[in-house]
């Protein structure tokens, strides 16, 4: 997924420019430096993974257990 970020920043040289459909049309600013683009991609993933790997709060697990118990009791 992160590799997607680099992809659109690369430009093919000249030859195919007229036939190649623009991915989004209105974005002249899509041509970021690939290194900066990768850095943003990695930072985004780090931000996200930091939360994914954090322990879940007990309240949510307790709640699910309650829902299940209620269903089985009903």
């Amino acid at each position, binding site marked *: 997924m992160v590799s997607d*970020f680099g992809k659109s920043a690369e430009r093919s040289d000249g030859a195919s420019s007229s036939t190649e459909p623009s991915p989004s*049309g209105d974005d002249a600013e899509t041509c970021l430096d690939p290194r900066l683009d990768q850095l943003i991609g990695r930072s*985004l993933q780090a*931000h996200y993974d930091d939360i994914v790997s954090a322990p879940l709060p007990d*309240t*949510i697990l307790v709640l699910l257990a309650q829902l299940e118990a209620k269903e089985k009791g009903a």
Partner: protein
Amino acid sequence: MSDAFRDQLVAELPNLRAFAASLCGSMQLADDLVQDTAVKAWSNQDKFQQGTSIRAWLFTILRNTYFSLYRKRGREVQDVEGVYSSKIAVIGGQESHIDLADFRIALAQLPEEQREALVMIGASGLSYEEAAEISGVPVGTVKSRVNRARAKLAAVLSIDGLEDFGPSKATASVTRSAGAFTAD
């Protein structure tokens, strides 16, 4: 059936939480959102089509909950600095670093629709098609939102370092690596 569903749901909770936090910028609000979403998902489990992406289904519920309920209540909080249990973390290799806290502050500055698109595509592992369906917009719109989000982040992270307000070491090193293309 509900045991299997429960397992699927529980397995998705960390991702749901990361998406929620990215969306609302508050860990506390994110947990409320995840809790509401879990209750709704549980009571609507018969509506989930096995074989489709449960992540996309849950994200849709969470997003709808957020936009219909939380935001209307005026509970939009972007108190980013205080809310994440932010460890000192640095992203990147030797020549380029972004402090995780700095990145989160930059992320919070994006318009909501750009932020959610960026997170779904760049971190949650959803396809453009799934993200489009979740947000209720065409695929092209998701692509352009992601592109604009990246451009804005690049600008924010670079400019922050350039301005002479005593940038942190982290943003300063971003500037160093970004210098080549911010100069022109």
